[in-house]
Every structure is written in structure tokens, then in C-alpha cells.
């Protein structure tokens, strides 16, 4: 099979997986909608937290309430989309524990594709919905004037963010090959990235900003492009920064491969 043929075939298979996931979820409609509501409520409390803080304080590190809302909602969109697609990696410990990864290894397809397909989490629409609502509210509150550059920046941020968080989920899953115990720590980067990403990263000080640029490049999908979105900068290069997440993802994938190799040599 040639290159495009193979990609098409993989895409076709992935869509097949997704449709089975959706149909499975629809078998329990009540549960499905309750979970969506739950997701919506969860992020509502985060929003309320920001609201309460800004009732007391009117500005933080130079950012206004609406700036923070834009930042928060974009990060939430990135995260919920990544979670929707890459949930299979987020729940990978269960898969290893139940021995289901063995099943994946005895099938003639890439492991990543199969794990991605095993779980397409449609309930994350709840979170996504909340993020979109806050975003719209933020856009009006900040009176964002839409230019081609800003639209491009937003798209680029979303794409880069999905890649970045997916990479983190991939690393999380790769750790499952080594230990099923110490995984909690990865939450700092996944859930933490979402929770603390609600404020632009320079709020946390210079050192954190450096960490979030060179170790795990959150700033590439959040702080830098955000400057364009909230009208602090016109530098179009910032709009391309989120694509740096691709490099990060490649590194995460290398680690995943390393994990798979460890798994097949330790057999547990």
C-alpha cells in the first residue's frame, strides 16, 4: 500500500472505532447525559472560582478578568478535545491491568491507533460546551476585534494544545508499562496543566515560565499566542508557536515506544 493509501486506511479504521464508541455510549443514554452534565458542572466550578477571585481583585499580573477568561476557555477547549480523542491513553492503566494491551499486540495494527480507537470519550462535550460558552462570554467582555491573524492564532492554539495534552497523555500511558503505582504524579502535568493553565503562565513567575517553555512547552500553546488574542502583540510569529507542540509530541512518542519495548521484555 502506498503512503496516502495507508493513511486513508488508518483514518477509515479510526472512524470505524469512533462510531462503535458512540454507539456504545448511546446504549446508556441517561448515564451519558448525566456524565455530560457532570463534566459541565465541574468546569463551572472552576469558572466560579475565577469569578470569585476577580470580585475581590480586579487585575492579576496585568491581566484583566476578560483576558483570564479567554485564556481559561482556550486551555479548557484544548484539554477537553485532547481528552475526548486521547482518553484511551488517559485510562491506559486499566487497560494494562486487565491485560487488554496483550490483545492489542496480537493484532496487526499500530498500538497507538488501537489505543486511541479503544476509547473516544464523547462525554467530554460537556466540558467543551462550558469552554465555548466562557470563550464567547470572554470575547464579548474583552471586545476582541477579529482579524485574520487572530482567527489563525486561535486555530493554531487549539491544534497545538490538543497535540500537547495528547503528548502528555501518551507519556502518562507509557509510564503504565513501568509502574501502575506512581502515576498520580503525571496529574500535575495533565490536570494541572488544565487547572493552572487557566491563568497566563507568567502569573506564576519567571521560573515557572521557563519551565513551561523548555521542559513542557505550555507557553507555546498558551502564553505567547494569547498575547495576540488579547491585543498585546501583533507579532504574527507567535501564532506559529503552538506548532512547536509537534516536537514535544514526537519526544513523547519516543518515550511511548521505549515503554512498549519494556513491556514486551518484562511481560507484565
Amino acid at each position, binding site marked *: 500500500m502506498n503512503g496516502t493509501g495507508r493513511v486513508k486506511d488508518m483514518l477509515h*479504521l479510526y472512524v470505524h472505532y469512533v462510531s462503535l464508541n458512540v*454507539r456504545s455510549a448511546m446504549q*446508556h443514554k441517561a448515564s451519558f447525559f448525566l456524565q455530560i452534565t457532570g463534566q459541565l458542572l465541574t468546569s463551572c466550578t472552576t469558572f466560579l472560582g475565577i469569578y470569585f477571585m476577580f470580585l475581590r481583585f480586579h487585575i492579576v499580573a496585568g491581566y484583566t478578568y476578560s483576558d483570564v477568561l479567554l485564556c481559561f476557555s482556550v486551555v479548557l477547549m484544548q484539554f477537553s478535545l485532547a481528552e475526548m480523542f486521547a482518553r484511551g491513553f488517559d485510562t491506559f492503566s486499566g487497560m494494562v491491568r*486487565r*491485560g487488554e494491551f496483550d490483545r492489542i499486540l*496480537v493484532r*496487526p495494527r499500530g498500538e497507538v491507533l488501537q489505543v486511541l480507537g479503544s476509547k473516544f470519550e464523547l462525554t467530554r462535550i460537556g466540558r467543551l460546551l462550558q469552554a465555548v460558552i466562557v470563550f464567547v462570554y470572554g470575547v464579548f467582555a474583552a471586545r476582541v476585534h477579529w482579524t485574520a491573524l487572530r482567527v489563525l492564532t486561535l486555530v493554531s492554539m487549539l491544534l497545538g494544545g490538543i497535540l500537547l495534552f495528547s503528548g502528555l497523555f501518551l507519556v502518562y500511558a507509557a509510564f503504565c508499562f513501568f509502574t501502575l503505582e506512581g502515576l498520580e504524579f503525571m496529574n500535575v502535568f495533565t490536570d494541572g496543566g488544565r487547572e493552572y493553565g487557566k491563568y497566563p503562565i507568567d502569573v506564576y513567575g519567571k521560573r515557572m515560565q521557563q519551565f513551561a517553555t523548555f521542559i513542557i512547552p505550555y507557553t507555546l500553546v498558551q502564553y505567547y499566542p494569547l498575547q495576540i488574542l488579547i491585543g498585546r502583540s501583533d507579532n504574527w510569529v507567535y501564532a506559529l508557536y503552538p506548532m512547536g507542540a509537534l516536537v514535544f509530541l514526537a519526544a513523547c512518542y519516543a518515550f511511548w515506544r521505549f515503554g512498549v519495548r519494556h513491556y514486551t*521484555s518484562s511481560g507484565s
Partner: protein
Amino acid sequence: MIVMENICKTYRVQRRSAGIKEACRSLFCRDYEYIHALDNVSFTIHDGEMIGYMGPNGAGKSSTIKILSGILVPDSGKCEIDGLTPWKNRVAHVSRIGVVFGQRSQLWWDIPVIDSFELLRDIYAVPEKRYRENLEELTELLQLSELLKTPTRQLSLGQRMRCEIAAALVHSPSLLFLDEPTIGLDAVSKLAVRDFIRRQNSEHGTTVILTTHDMQDIAAIARRVILIGKGRILLDGTLDDIRREGGADDLEKAAAGLYRKLEIS
């Protein structure tokens, strides 16, 4: 053809003991022990053979199966299946094998069985025509026509196992691994499963490797038996060899006698 030569595999496991004191102690230092799961395992299996692979719990059965199916890489030794090394040519190798894990399902729980089959068709890239033919044959032989439209969660264990076996054969593999395929099944289902496996072998020449504790399964399916204990192959012969070595006509008793005699249980 399957050739296993001097395969070795060692695991490191952690020792745990009871009591609060021990639990606290193990916070700081831990003891490990090394288990030789496979110790110089060698055998050759020809195309179309039906092998009963037996041994007590922890003897190394599942390690062998994992190596043969490309899930596990051994520490040393050679393994070739139809010219391919399973863990080196994983994708090419696994598209020719089928695996049934009796305790784990590969069917999607909430949706009709046929949907899982269609996904498998896409996973194994089975051409539509051959998929139709295989499905038709499997449906007839395993009496699946009603079951295919039913969600997996509504199937009885016996019905589900029939579907599991069919799912493992959708892509017409030339080598079939069966791990405890009749566990928990009622008498009628057991007979149906055994009957089908024999037929699959005689009509398609599928090589079958069966691991189970059920001696009836082995008697009904296997023509050759390989016995493993503490990581070593202890016997490679026929059912009669087992009866003779175990000193009993009843296979169950013979196996138990053999395990005791060889001190492997």
C-alpha cells in the same frame, strides 16, 4: 511450522509478606526473587497439528504462548514461525494468528456482536468477499445467526464463547491459540466448541495450540501433548504417553499422578 529452540525467560518479582510491621519495612527496602519462567524450552510443531499444552499453574504456559504470539520477548533462544520471528516481525506475524483468551473478551460489550466482527474485518484488512465467506461459514457451523444481532452483554457464557472463537477466525488465521476455551461452559456448549475446533483443523488445516486445565478438552482436541513444569518441557508425546507415565487410564488422574511424580505442582 513453529520452531522453538532453547528459549529462556526470567522474571523479577517482589516478595511481599503479611503484617503491619512488614508493610512498613517494605516501604524502605524490598526483596526480589527471580523466577525462571522458561528454562531452555524447545519444540517443533508442524502445520496442521493440534497440540495440547498442559502443566500446572505457573508452569510457564502463558509465557510460552505470549512468546509465540509476539507479546513477549524472551531473554535468549530462537523462535521462528513460518520463517518469521514473532517479536521482530510482529505485524506480519500476528495477521496470521488468531487468539482466544477464555477469560477476556474481544467483543464490544454494549453493541451487537456483528459490529465487533466488522471492526475486526477492518483491523485485519480482510477483503470483503473473503469476509462474507468466512462469516457465512462461521455462522453456520457455530450457529451464530441469532447471536450476531445481540449485544454481547446479553449473551450467555456459552454463546459468547462461540462468538469469541468466530471473532478469532474472521481473518482465517493459519495458527490458532486457545487459552481455556471451555472454562465455565455447560456440557452442550463444551461439546459444540470442541467439535468446531476439530472441524476447523480438518477442513482448513489450521494449526491449533490449546492450553487448558480441562483434560477432557485435551482428550477431545489434541493429538499431541506437551507438558511443561517449572519452565521445562517434561513430556512431549501422545495422550497414551500421559496415561502410561501417570499410571492411570483416566486422564485427569494420570495428569495429577504425573504432576506429583515430577514434583511440579
